[in-house]
């Protein structure tokens, strides 16, 4: 009897551990939505900040983050997809492939602040792009490359081998096969992974801090060589560096809500696409 009692206790312990995590997540999201909504209005989303962020809106930060996301995807998407196609369709087992895989694993583990240092050293200073959107996008692209490669490869591998063999048997060349029989079925899957990567890039602060972000810059960027404000860094500044941090809580919650909505929204889109693909192709 005592045995089954201990079992029940262990079961409930593990269940409560799991649900306490769920509860914390729910609380974080609920609190940010509940306290953020009163702060978010039309002016907040479309006006320039005033008094170093204590009043006005967060438009430049939103625009900055959107610019960074677009630029990052433009750089990382083709590169990541091409790498994934090579690894899944062309690469043979061997030294070269092993080194590439090792490099991808290494990249995936590099801390974001180290990417920041790297971006600062290479793009900002060595290539003389300065603290700019360009430097930031390139740095973030390097950071999310492993995510895009991993999920694109998964999408490619999901296409059954038989389809490739059928196409090759019809006399198509390898690239023709890939282009007409593999990519059409895996493209949306590849896109999903890239979207997840961009979601991560949007919320990242540390690399952006060293390569692009402006402390306070109430104007919109004109070229890729301009500095911009961005949402995560703006939240950090408002919450910890602002002299009246205690008095501008609504502004902070508002910024946090916009950032959270953006990031979770991106992830939601990815999840929807993924479930649509699963319904569409059942091999």
């Amino acid at each position, binding site marked *: 009897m005592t045995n089954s009692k201990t079992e029940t206790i262990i079961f409930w312990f593990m269940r409560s551990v799991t649900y306490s995590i769920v509860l914390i997540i729910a609380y974080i999201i609920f609190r940010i939505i509940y306290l953020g909504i009163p702060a978010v209005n039309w002016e907040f989303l479309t006006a320039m900040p005033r008094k170093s962020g204590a009043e006005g809106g967060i438009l430049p930060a939103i625009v900055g983050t959107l610019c960074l996301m677009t630029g990052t995807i433009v750089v990382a998407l083709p590169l990541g997809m091409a790498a994934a196609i090579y690894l899944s369709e062309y690469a043979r087992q061997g030294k070269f492939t092993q080194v590439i895989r090792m490099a*991808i694993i290494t990249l995936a583990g590099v*801390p974001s602040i180290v990417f920041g240092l790297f971006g600062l050293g290479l793009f900002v200073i060595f290539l003389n792009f300065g603290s700019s959107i360009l430097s930031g996008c390139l740095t973030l692209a390097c950071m999310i490359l492993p995510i895009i490669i991993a999920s694109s490869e998964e999408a490619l591998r999901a296409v059954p081998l038989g389809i490739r063999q059928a196409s090759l048997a019809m006399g198509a060349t*390898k690239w023709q096969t890939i282009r007409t029989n593999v990519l059409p079925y895996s493209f949306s899957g590849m896109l999903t992974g890239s979207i997840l990567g961009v979601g991560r890039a949007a919320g990242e602060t540390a690399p952006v801090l060293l390569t692009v972000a402006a402390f306070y810059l109430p104007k919109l960027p004109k070229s890729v060589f301009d500095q911009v404000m961005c949402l995560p860094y703006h939240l950090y500044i408002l919450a910890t560096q602002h002299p009246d941090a205690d008095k501008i809580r609504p502004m902070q919650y508002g910024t946090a809500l916009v950032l959270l909505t953006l990031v979770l929204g991106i992830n939601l889109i990815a999840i929807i696409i993924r479930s649509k693909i699963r319904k569409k192709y059942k091999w």
Partner: protein
Amino acid sequence: MQNWRKILFKEKAVKYTLAAAASMSILIVLLIFTFLGKEAFGFLYEPGLKELFHTRWMPVSSQRESFGLVPLICGSLLVTTMATIIMIPFGVGASVYIAELAKPRERETLKPFIEILACIPSVVIGFFGLLIIVPMVKKVFGLQSGYNALSGAILLALMAIPTVISISEDAIRSVPKDYKSASLALGASKMQTVWRVIVPAALPGIITAVMLGIGRVIGETMAVMMVTGNSALITGNPTESVRTMTATIAAEMGEVPFGSTHYKALFCVGIVLLIATFILNLIAFKILKKYRMIG
């Protein structure tokens, strides 16, 4: 004939273009090491490696600047160790529960919900910590300030938990069903099967999950910078303020003049971080590969 040659040429061109794109990852890794190394090497040249073992981090001082990494490494170690201690029961407990004990419907709701936590930007977690965890720690432990290593560790554990859960859950689910059936057939109860058969079989995967979680904790910057108070002390006391390596780089890089000793010292910090996470990841993937938990 002409056409055939054209097609062959195109095939080759495509292949090599794709191979070039794939090699970009190698190039980026090399560039990271080169550009971090380049600046850090300048430091080893002047004032020299010995300076890094100094016990004080005082990059700006009117008398004598010192760039000892010891307090920063200590800070990172303290926060990481504590985060690991918090993370293991939560991460492993939850992954076992989700993989083995939860009902299918329950699992399908729990998994995506916990994945949401992985998507929340670290600065938002830091913001939450600033307003909730810091006052809570201060109150519960009756301290003068809640900006300490403990607050940082709680937030970091929270951020690493989704990583730990998702990888160790995969490991647990990849244990062959036969093990479970055999154990149950021998008359073992469900809990005995889980703890004596399934978890030991999945242990390499679980260890890897924890190591990758630790890798994430060491590299985390914003959340930890917002709540640990950032004073560079050598301490083992969780209720004291610490300054981690990541926070040091993020906080000080903005103000240092390019090429100064301080600037180079921050790159040395980066190198230490890079090597630490590199080794952790390498070991983690070696374990995964050895036990064939990944392809």
